[in-house]
């Protein structure tokens, strides 16, 4: 994709693209258990490549999620387009996904002559990049977090979430209004089926559509969604696009290791016998419409994936509502919840309104109640929320405080009694 953007920006092309891109690479070696030497090697290769490309580039490591502010989980309204003179677009080359394509690394890849004229554009070194080895504590914390997750599916989902937040933060910090990802048609078809299996059916339009505006000010676009992986692979081969291979979490995993792998194997096997499989799934994804649920445009959003919540916690008649009630009642009592335990039985009915004090005192329950269905299912495989980056827990606390304030303003006398029993 970066190559195509290069082509599009060159002076020769008939319809020249008009934006100023930057490239970001996220080093996820700590989550995959790679040694520091391996990671440094990959990053060095990546740097060579990015320098050859000529755009401003940023290398960030996944450990930096531990220093993210809670504001990254908030949705900001769209900024007016004319705010900064020319609008900037960030190119996020998921080179780790594109590692499947392009067999050769850049030896002396021909750089078009036009690049030299554009060298006036600051090819900045990365201000937030690896100035030196990452604080070992953060690397250790990240490996512990991923080591504690029970299933590969949950690990992949968690990685995806953290990576998204990190890229969002980089985009916001550097003033980019759009993030372009290199998801191809095949990848999106697999993603669509995987999302269905994971319980994200309500958000398919955002996860696989061309543009994803759930973050408000930063829009995620997928310009490569029309091209199949085969086309991209051939393009890379025929145009000698350089690439760097970085082993990921699921490299060499057996086929049934996670839902993602299973779905990938399933779709690709079907594709061999029925060559229209991927395109059919893709066309179906194009028909998905982003309609707000019940006609509500604004409502509470999931803490992690920032989609409008698809669950109705107050509806205990549904299977999900019953599950939620069970969940709160089987929580082991934490020291802080002891004060609330006498009211636990009595306030079981209150839990479904989300104002039960017993839930508020338990950080795990507090985070869980702010997640959508699929995020909850994934988080069940994360045994300890203490290992999560602090910005998630901080934002969860902030939201629950705000929610309880709102509810207490609405309720008349009951709320005063409930909050009193929680304090005692």
């Amino acid at each position, binding site marked *: 994709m970066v190559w195509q953007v290069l082509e599009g920006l060159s002076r020769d092309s008939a319809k020249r693209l008009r934006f100023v891109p930057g490239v970001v690479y996220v080093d996820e070696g700590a989550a995959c258990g790679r040694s520091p030497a391996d990671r440094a090697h990959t990053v060095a290769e990546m740097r060579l490549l990015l320098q050859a490309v000529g755009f401003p580039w940023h290398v960030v490591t996944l450990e930096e999620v531990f220093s993210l502010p809670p504001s990254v989980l908030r949705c900001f309204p769209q900024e007016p387009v004319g705010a900064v003179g020319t609008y900037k677009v960030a190119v996020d080359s998921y080179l780790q996904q594109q590692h*499947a394509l392009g067999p050769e690394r850049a030896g002396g890849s021909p750089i078009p002559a036009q690049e030299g004229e554009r060298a006036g554009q600051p090819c900045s070194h990365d201000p937030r990049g690896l100035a030196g080895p990452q604080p070992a504590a953060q690397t250790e914390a990240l490996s512990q977090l991923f080591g504690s997750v029970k299933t590969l599916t949950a690990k992949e989902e968690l990685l995806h979430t953290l990576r998204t937040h990190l890229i969002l933060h980089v985009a916001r910090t550097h003033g980019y209004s759009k993030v372009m990802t290199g998801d191809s048609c095949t990848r999106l078809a697999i993603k669509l089926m995987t999302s269905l299996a994971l319980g994200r059916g309500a958000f398919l339009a955002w996860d696989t559509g061309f543009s994803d505006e759930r973050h408000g000010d930063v829009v995620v676009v997928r310009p490569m969604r029309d091209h199949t992986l085969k086309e991209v692979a*051939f393009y890379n081969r025929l145009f000698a696009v350089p690439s760097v*291979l970085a082993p990921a979490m699921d490299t060499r995993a057996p086929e049934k290791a996670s839902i993602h792998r299973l779905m990938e194997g399933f779709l690709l096997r079907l594709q061999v016998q029925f060559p229209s499989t991927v395109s059919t799934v893709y066309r179906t994804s194009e028909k998905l419409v982003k309609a707000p649920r019940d006609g509500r445009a604004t409502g509470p959003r999931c803490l992690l994936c920032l989609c409008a919540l698809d669950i109705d916690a107050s509806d205990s008649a549904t299977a999900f509502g019953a599950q939620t009630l069970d969940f709160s009642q089987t929580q082991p009592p934490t020291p802080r919840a002891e004060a609330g335990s006498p009211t636990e039985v009595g306030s079981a009915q209150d839990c479904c309104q989300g104002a039960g004090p017993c839930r508020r005192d338990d950080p795990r329950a507090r985070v869980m109640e702010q997640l959508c269905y699929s995020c909850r299912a994934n988080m069940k495989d994360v045994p300890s929320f203490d290992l999560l980056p602090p910005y998630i827990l901080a934002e969860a606390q902030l939201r629950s405080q705000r929610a309880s304030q709102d509810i207490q303003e609405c309720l008349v006398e009951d709320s005063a009694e409930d909050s009193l029993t929680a304090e005692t």
Partner: protein
Amino acid sequence: MAAPLSVEVEFGGGAELLFNGIKKHQVTLPGQEEPWDIRSLLVWIKKNLLKERPELFIQGDSVRPGILVLVNDADWELLGELDYQLQDQDSILFISTLHGG
């Protein structure tokens, strides 16, 4: 009776991880009764080059779905897939488009 063939076998997109990280292999296929085709080449690769996890590369008779095969920079589907008969100095490229290597 087929004469010994010299072909270049290349791996990309992560497939090289199964072959000790070496991308290009110049191999000489010994002479044998039947002419060499991709099917027999795969058997040969499995026996001689594949260092680990054969199920990640070969499935049954053919390559795992998701691995592209190019013969002399052309898609093997145009050339008859497994039945294409190898010529001397051919270049066979296997690109993995799978996430898991």
